[in-house]
């Protein structure tokens, strides 16, 4: 089975000044279906850049990126939008919910852009809200929710279109320890059900939940280790 994510010698250079800033310098990596990968590194190590590339929000300056068998590095804006819509689920540090939409409407946004009819969207969003334990808050707006609940909504939204990979950017960065634990447990559960997770973090507790840890330093992969035992409370 071919890997879900294939990075071949990926470079990303930002045009700053005469020479430009090299954020990623020849990253190569394969991620298979069902993996739970943590990407770690200090700020400036290139992990945000890598996340943007993996999430098809950005295109590599050089190199090739294949997602689910198709090369996305040369795609145009509209095609990339489709890829983001169907194949990628984003979970952000600051939740990034749309404040004037209700919880259910927030979950429905990706399905909206996929073109699902209203009733189908509503059915699926209710299902997801239930699954993440938000069933009783369906009509609430993000401002009426706690941090943990917001992140659950974001996870539900990420799952809306059954993506190939879930990309999480510091998913517990804005949460307290207890809530972080809950969210990480949700991730573990999702991974157990077969979802492929890529989590960008600088917290070792978060990384400890992953079965593979990729460390970045100065735009290169410093280490790529598989951890056999799952650490921390499940």
């Amino acid at each position: 089975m071919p890997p879900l994510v294939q990075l071949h010698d990926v470079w990303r250079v930002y045009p700053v000044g005469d020479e430009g800033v090299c954020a990623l310098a020849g990253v190569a990596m394969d991620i298979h279906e069902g993996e739970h990968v943590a990407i770690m590194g200090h700020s400036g190590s290139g992990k945000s850049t890598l996340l943007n590339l993996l999430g098809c929000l950005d295109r590599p300056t050089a190199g090739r990126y294949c997602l689910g068998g198709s090369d996305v590095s040369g795609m145009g804006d509209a095609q990339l939008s489709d890829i983001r819509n169907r194949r990628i689920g984003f979970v952000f540090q600051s939740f990034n919910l749309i404040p004037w939409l209700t919880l259910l409407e927030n979950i429905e946004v990706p399905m909206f852009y996929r073109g699902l009819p209203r009733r189908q969207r509503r059915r699926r969003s209710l299902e997801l809200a239930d699954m993440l334990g938000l069933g009783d808050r369906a009509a609430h707006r993000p401002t009426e929710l706690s941090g943990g609940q917001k992140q659950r909504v974001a996870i539900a939204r990420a799952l809306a279109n059954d993506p190939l990979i879930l990309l999480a950017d510091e998913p517990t960065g804005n949460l307290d320890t207890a809530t972080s634990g809950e969210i990480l447990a949700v991730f573990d559960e999702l991974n157990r059900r077969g979802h492929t997770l890529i989590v960008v973090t600088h917290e070792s507790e978060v990384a400890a939940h992953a079965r593979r840890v990729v460390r970045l330093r100065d735009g290169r992969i410093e280490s790529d280790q598989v951890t056999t035992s799952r650490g921390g409370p499940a």
Partner: protein
Amino acid sequence: MIFPQRIADVVRLGLHGVVVHKVRSVLTVLGILFGVWSVIAMLAINAGLTVESQRQLRNLGSTNIIIDSVKPALTGGGTSSGNSGAKSFVLTYGLTRADVERLRDNPPGVIESAVMHWTRKNADANGKRQSVSVFGVEANYADVAGVPLAAGRFISSADLIRRRACCLITRELAADLFPCEDPLGKTVYLSDRTAAHAVTVIGVLDQLPQALSRHAGSGQRCVIIPLTTDLATFGEIMVHATQGSIDAERVQVSQCILRMADEAAVLAAAPIVRDLLERYHEGVRDCEVRVPVEEIELMKADRRRWNFMFVMIASVSLLVGGIGIMNIMLASVTERTREIGIRRALGAKRRHIVTQFLVESVTLTAIGGVLGIVIGLLVPWIVRRALGFETLTTAATLLVPFVMAVVVGLLSGLYPAMRAARLDPVEALRHE
């Protein structure tokens, strides 16, 4: 191609933006509302004025050709230039009875002709004196020119044959001479420098016919008498004294109205009439041909020009409203940069973002447009109260401004929407 959102979804999304920012939306809508309203008002007022003047022209009779004698500009021999003392002479000009016969017989489609002879005289009654215009007419004048009566009857052929001393007077004159009594049956003394004659009032005009208004003078104090009585008593010469000299004018026929079979006959006959007069008057411009149908055609063209100008002026306020919308939408794009980033990350294409913002601006203008139409429906009432004339609002005068507003919304939403769509998703997500 998958175009995901059904129309309802897109509109709901756009409406959402409108509802969420209530104050902002209301203020923007106000700008458009007044723009639309002023365009509607301009169109309605202009249409009302046009209808009014067309009505006046129709009162002249749309199947009529009206030829009036006019005093020519004094040129050449026989003029009073250089006269030193009291000198008198008679200036002869205008239509002749021979002209009238020619006009009646020559162009095809003439049904009948009605002639009128005009003079200025004094009218005395009840010890009051008024300077009046006296119109000597034939019995068919009422049918041809349309003479609305308030009381009594018009002149009959028997009156003409017997040269009866009877007359009709205008309401205005009746009010002056007989302020407190019924004028019917009363006697009015008409006089000029050469003769005087007592006539009995047999009718009161409700309104002076449009065809006579140019001869009526200010105040509309007029008397209509049988043409035969007029000519037998006073003759064709009108004498008037000005500053030491006495001038006299001789006009056989002051006005001739040709009633034609239909409007097509009018348009065909008009050039023939002009040609005949030109030929027989040897180039002297002492009569004027009026063709109401032609004037109506001219006025239609004129109306289009005025409409265009009115709409241009009113459009300025729509334009200002549009600039307001653009301003608001630009602010909205900046304010919602992060939302745009989120939507893009979740799979929104550029055109989705463009559509969302366009729908929002068009929704704002459409709401403003609808409210503008609602207030526009009050225009006739306001104008009637404030300016005292009727306006005309049609479906077109209501819809044109509405469509203009929506187009303004589209155009002014376009640039902000494009800007929103061009945002880099990564940058937009980072925006605070």
